[in-house]
């Protein structure tokens, strides 16, 4: 099988063969062409030297000229004496006529270009007095495909005949102009001459070059980062995708069941809040698609999730242990802490504490501390049962009454604010104290409200310790459990000063 050399192959290929000599002598060989790894440089301008033009006045391949090819005003000179190189060049202007001459070529700057430099050789000769005002002009410019100007790269005029010593064939180079700002765009490189009606200026253009350097552009990678494949989901689910590319991810989208749900541009991450209540229960497919500027599209691995919107999920928390069962049956948690009930089923949950533990209450779709709770499965529901193990036994130690804190000496506690008050180490209370016997005072409240004390480091358990009334300085006695020797105060009412006095502790 003959081997053909491939330009920029994406994979490595090999061919093996055998060379036989006369007699029994032979040799084997392997020919390997590695996958192209790097990029390279190339000239985007087709026939920048116009040498492929068939005759004067006719367009060179790749170029568009105005006036049109074959008119009496020749813009392409074949077999002329004044080329920068070769025997063909473009000649703009040069007549005593008010007119524009256009020489344009459409190019697409690759999105993976690392450099893009336009150069051209120009020769300017004029019959204007050298150094006179600008009368005749040549613009080196970029236009869009609709013929609208994008930018002028260089403006030359009859004054620039000085650069050519006003001698035909005496070229100077313009550029390089960096066009990398137009990566991924298709534009027209234009040489536009304007001449007025007297004392002509001739602009010769030759050897136009747009050198681009590119590097390899591999397809992007992308994946769904959440939810996990195989996950059981309900309600509103946060779907997230990431993507990466060796250049840039130009677009990223998340598809669910084959339909694009959301997309963005020029970002490597994307998320989508998926309301699973709007789809059927059962399996659904999620994947992401990433696009790069080189036209590559990558689809991620498919993540399959199971939507279950009538699932009752029971979670157990707390320091103790116990079980939760349901009627109708389904939940035995234990081990089965999730069950899909029919829509609108009334499910009664029963919490049973293990020996040595006690049930302390529900949260989520259930509340209160009764061991039984009924949930209506109008949607997916989550219930948490809290079991606690018995706290440690402690004995009472009496103290001389002692003031722990008086916020009038520091700052009052704002409404809806909490403050940690360290009790251990004050008033003779040891670090090992588990609770203090305290008298709590609210001083001169500006409105009604309450203070709640609870062990530091946990959320407010919904209790109250001292209810205060507008204008009434009021006290209450309380046993305050500590955590690490610290109690937390939560205030609900008005900016409030408070006092903690202790008379003993438990340890």
């Amino acid at each position: 099988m003959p081997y053909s050399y491939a330009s920029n192959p994406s994979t490595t290929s090999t061919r093996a063969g055998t060379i036989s000599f006369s007699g029994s002598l032979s040799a084997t060989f392997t020919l390997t062409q590695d996958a192209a790894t790097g990029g390279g440089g190339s000239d985007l301008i087709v026939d920048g030297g116009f040498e492929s033009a068939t005759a004067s006045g006719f367009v060179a391949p790749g170029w568009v000229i105005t006036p049109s090819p074959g008119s009496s005003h020749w813009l392409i000179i074949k077999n002329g004496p004044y080329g920068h190189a070769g025997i063909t060049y473009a000649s703009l202007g040069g007549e005593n006529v008010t007119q524009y001459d256009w020489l344009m070529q459409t190019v697409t700057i690759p999105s993976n270009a690392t450099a893009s430099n336009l150069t051209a050789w120009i020769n300017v000769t004029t019959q204007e007095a050298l150094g006179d005002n600008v009368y005749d002009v040549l613009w080196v410019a970029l236009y869009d495909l609709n013929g609208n100007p994008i930018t002028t790269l260089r403006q030359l005029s009859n004054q620039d005949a000085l650069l050519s010593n006003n001698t035909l064939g005496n070229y100077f180079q313009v550029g390089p102009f960096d066009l990398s700002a137009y990566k991924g765009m298709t534009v027209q490189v234009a040489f536009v001459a304007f001449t007025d009606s007297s004392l002509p200026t001739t602009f010769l253009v030759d050897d136009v070059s747009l050198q681009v350097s590119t590097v390899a552009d591999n397809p992007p990678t992308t994946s769904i980062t959440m939810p996990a494949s195989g996950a059981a989901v309900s309600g509103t689910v946060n779907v997230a995708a990431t993507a990466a590319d060796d250049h840039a991810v130009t677009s990223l989208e998340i598809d669910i069941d084959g339909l694009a749900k959301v997309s963005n541009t020029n970002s490597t991450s994307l998320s989508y809040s998926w309301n699973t209540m709007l789809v059927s229960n059962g399996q659904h497919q999620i994947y992401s698609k990433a696009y790069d500027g080189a036209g590559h599209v990558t689809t991620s691995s498919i993540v399959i999730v199971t939507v279950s919107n009538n699932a009752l999920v029971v979670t157990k928390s707390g320091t103790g242990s116990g079980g939760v069962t349901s009627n109708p049956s389904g939940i035995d948690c234990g081990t089965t802490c999730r069950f899909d009930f029919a829509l609108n089923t009334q499910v009664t949950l029963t919490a049973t504490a293990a020996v040595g533990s006690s049930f302390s209450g529900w949260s989520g779709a259930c509340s209160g501390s009764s061991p039984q709770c009924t949930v209506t499965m109008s949607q997916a529901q989550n219930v948490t049962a809290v079991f606690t193990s018995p706290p440690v036994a402690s004995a009472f130690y009496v103290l001389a009454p002692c003031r722990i804190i008086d916020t009038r000496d520091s700052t009052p506690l704002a409404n809806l604010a909490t403050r940690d008050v360290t009790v251990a180490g004050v008033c003779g209370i040891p670090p090992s104290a588990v609770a203090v016997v305290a008298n709590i005072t609210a001083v001169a409240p500006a409105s009604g409200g309450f203070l709640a004390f609870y062990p530091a480091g946990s959320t407010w358990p919904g209790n109250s310790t001292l209810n205060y009334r507008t204008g009434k300085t009021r006290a209450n006695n309380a046993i305050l459990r500590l955590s690490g020797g610290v109690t937390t105060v939560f205030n609900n009412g008005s900016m409030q000063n408070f006092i903690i006095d202790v008379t003993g502790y438990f340890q």
Partner: protein
Amino acid sequence: MKNILRLTLSMILLGVSGNALAQSGPYSYYALTPCRAVDTRETNGTNGGPIFGSNSTRNFQIRGICGIPTGAKAVSLNLTIVNATQSSFLTVWPSNVARPFVSMLNFEAADPSLANGVLVGLSSNAQDLSVYNNSGNVHVIIDVTGYFQ
């Protein structure tokens, strides 16, 4: 005359016997994270509504919830009233004895809310803690903060 005297002695003995039931110990204290055990503003139930009426007693279940074991002998709690319609007082006591003539929380109708800390014994009944309201309507909240055992 002798028969009448014996009857009187019998009544006194009953009273002594009732008090003696509540005398036991010593017990250790177990501190808890505060936990709302009773709130009569909640829907009707053992530890929920309805609101207390005048001269009414209700029995609540304290052991077995909020981390309080069934073996608990006494509880430390914060007793709170809200929405009182008249000045009144509350009495709290173990549910297996007659209501003692004591008060734990005295309040006015003008108090939007008021609380007092109470240490009180628990009976061995399923509904182990009794609460009495003297007059008017009032909501009662009990937050437990620990127990004795």
